[in-house]
């Protein structure tokens, strides 16, 4: 059984078909790259699977159980955590408080939640920023903070929405290493990303969305040579 099974997921916004017929499986310990041109429906797909937007059709099964219709917080409890494309830390709270809030999910007592949050900040190299305000972090650090918050909820699957957007080359390298490290700790990852070199390097599989419809699913090297994919990115006549 796959960890996550998505079947025929779809969403219409009025007349606009944002996602249509999206089906795929995610195995435990897999890193799946979700790519596609701007407006292809990648973030919408995240929002549908994580419960932030109700889908118009389709099923999302986590460990065999349908999670469509659940609120985001109960999906988090079941083991799917997500980051936001435009980072959304609790800006006025400290870095430590940000992660503590997430750690409360499994540690109702404040002392334990805080200890867990400190442990996770250590893993993500944010210990020396713990007492500062979240809004004072660099973008790369804020993206790490979002991942730290996710980890504090003990996810089985992480949805990362452009974790490398806006980062410099060194920071992208570090982010790639981080994703690989998370996988080695037993977390499956779905990664929406435009940074193709990063996608090629760390994804086990790549799924391509175009106008809300999946057009390719396979090994990264195979997918980038797929004529449909090339056409989607470069336009007609270039393939």
């Amino acid at each position, binding site marked *: 059984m796959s960890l996550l099974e998505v079947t025929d997921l779809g969403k219409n916004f009025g007349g606009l078909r944002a996602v249509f017929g999206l089906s795929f499986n995610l195995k435990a310990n897999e890193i799946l790259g979700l790519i596609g041109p701007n407006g292809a429906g990648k973030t919408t797909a995240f929002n549908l699977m*994580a419960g*932030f937007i109700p889908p118009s059709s389709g099923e999302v099964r986590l460990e065999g159980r349908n999670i469509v219709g659940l*609120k*985001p*917080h*109960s999906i*988090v*409890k079941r083991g799917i*955590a*997500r980051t*936001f494309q435009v980072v*959304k*830390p*609790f*800006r*006025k*709270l400290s870095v430590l*408080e940000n992660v*503590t*809030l*997430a750690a*409360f*999910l499994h540690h*109702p*007592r*404040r002392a334990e*939640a805080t200890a867990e949050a400190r442990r996770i900040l250590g893993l993500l190299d944010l210990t020396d920023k713990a007492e500062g305000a979240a809004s004072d972090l660099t973008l790369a650090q804020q993206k790490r903070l979002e991942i730290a*918050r*996710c980890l*504090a*909820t003990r996810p089985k699957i992480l949805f990362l929405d452009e974790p490398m957007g806006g980062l410099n080359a060194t920071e992208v390298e570090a982010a790639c290493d981080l994703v690989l490290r998370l996988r080695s700790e037993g977390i499956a990852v779905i990664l929406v990303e435009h940074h193709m070199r990063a996608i090629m390097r760390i994804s086990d599989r790549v799924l391509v969305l175009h106008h809300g419809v999946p057009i390719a699913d396979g090994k990264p090297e195979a997918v980038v040579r797929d004529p449909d994919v090339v056409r989607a990115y470069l336009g007609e006549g270039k393939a």
Partner: protein
Amino acid sequence: MPKFALPGLLVAVFIAAPLLSTHSFVHHLLIMVLFSTLLGLSWNLLGGFAGQVSFGHSAFLGVGAYTTLLFYLKLGLSPWLGLVAGGALAMVVAVPIGLICFRLRGPYFSLATLAVAEIIRLVALNWEELTAGPQGLIITHLPALSLFGQTVNWESKLPFYYLIALLALLGMGLTHLVARSRLGAYLLAVREDLESAEAVGIDTVLTRVLALALSAMLVGLAGGFYGLYFRYIDPDAVFSVALSVEMVFIAVVGGIATTAGPIVGAIVLVSISETFRSQFQSGHLIFYGLFMMLVIRYLPDGIWGRVRLALKQVRER
């Protein structure tokens, strides 16, 4: 400082305060300060900590007031029991309202609270068999009761003072507990960003409903007190928008999302309103409004919020 020093000091001050004067007007002012404190504390739990701005809190105050008085007038039950029932019923009424209104965000929630309060006022106005409608309810005499072994002398203001002091302490204690608990942390998360709060596993509807229920309980108790103290209530008095707005002012002037803010706000606002009222027969509300504008412009964190910030800066230096 030992852990119980501050609360102990507070209790001592509350006990001693009315003994410094035998003037019944002074006692009345002290009662109004603590009554306002309780209103501010109640609004602050929801509006300050959770950032859910309610303009309809008089709805719960009215429910508390009517419950307390009806329990006594119609069923002959002790006002003590009625007071507790008023707080409980305000809480019960708040839960479905929360479940409906918390589907709305920001200004839409605030407008919904305004509408709900108006609906409840109209129900109270028109359900004459229960509430006596616009005539209101009046208590001609309060029953013989004993408190701490002493027969309560209702003609004195002191029993009312100690009653409201007890309720205000309860409100402060509750606020303090909430602020330190997981619920308090969740409320701040909800105030900061609803989506992020959901994303870290917080049930944002349940969290807000809990805050509303606790808040409604406090203001329901305040309503019960109001009914017993003034001995007369009618729908326009207890369900008024002015009263709802007053609660916002107390919390904002004092400092939102703080435990001590509401008492600071209550002291300042009751003093100002009484001073202007005695100086200017009519139009004293103009000065009150002017003062509010100055506070919002220059002290958006409130008076206590500002003091706390200053103390923190001094400590870090």
